[in-house]
C-alpha cells in the first residue's frame, strides 16, 4: 500500500467515483457527496476489513489466511505512513460530504455511521480482535 503511485491512484479513484456519480442527472449535489462517502467507505470496509487472506498463495504456510488486509499491512506494524494515510482519507471525505450537504441532519447521520464503520476497525486496539 505504500508502493509508488498507490496513494495517487486511490485519490484519483475516489475523484473518479465522485465524477461518475455527479454525472447521473437526477442526483443532487448533497446526494452525490453522501453516496460518494458511503460507497467509498463500503468499498474500503470490504477490501480492508472484511476480506481475509490473500488472493494468491503466499509462502508463509497460511499465516496471513486469517488476517484482514489491514492487519497484514506493513506486517502488522502500527502507525506507519500507509495506515495514517488510509485513516485520514475517509475523515477528509467525511468533512467534505458534511460541508456539501450543508450539515443536513439525515445526511449527517448517514455519513457519520458510514465513517465509523471504517474508523473503528482501524484502531490499533482492535488489531486482530474478532
Amino acid at each position, binding site marked *: 500500500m505504500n508502493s509508488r503511485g498507490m496513494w495517487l491512484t486511490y485519490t484519483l479513484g475516489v475523484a473518479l467515483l465522485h*465524477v*461518475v456519480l*455527479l*454525472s*447521473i*442527472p437526477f442526483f443532487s449535489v448533497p446526494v452525490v457527496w453522501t453516496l460518494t462517502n458511503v460507497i467509498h467507505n463500503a468499498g474500503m470496509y470490504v477490501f480492508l476489513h472484511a476480506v481475509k487472506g490473500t488472493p494468491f498463495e503466499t509462502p508463509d504456510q497460511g499465516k496471513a489466511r486469517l488476517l484482514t488486509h489491514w492487519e497484514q499491512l506493513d506486517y502488522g506494524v502500527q502507525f506507519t505512513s500507509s495506515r495514517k494515510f488510509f485513516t485520514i482519507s475517509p475523515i477528509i471525505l467525511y468533512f467534505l460530504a458534511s460541508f456539501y450537504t450543508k450539515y443536513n441532519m439525515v445526511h449527517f447521520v448517514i455519513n457519520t455511521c458510514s465513517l465509523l464503520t471504517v474508523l473503528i476497525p482501524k484502531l490499533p486496539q482492535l488489531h486482530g480482535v474478532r
Partner: protein
Amino acid sequence: YQYLLVTALYMLEPWERTVFNSLLISVAGMAVYTGYVFM
C-alpha cells in the same frame, strides 16, 4: 490496441469488454448530458 493494453481489457473475454465499454460509454454520455444541463 493501446487502449486494450492500458485498461487491461486485452486480458478480458469479448463479452466482458462489451460490458466494460458500454459502462464507460454510458457514464461518459451521462457526464456530457449533465455537463450540458449544468452549463
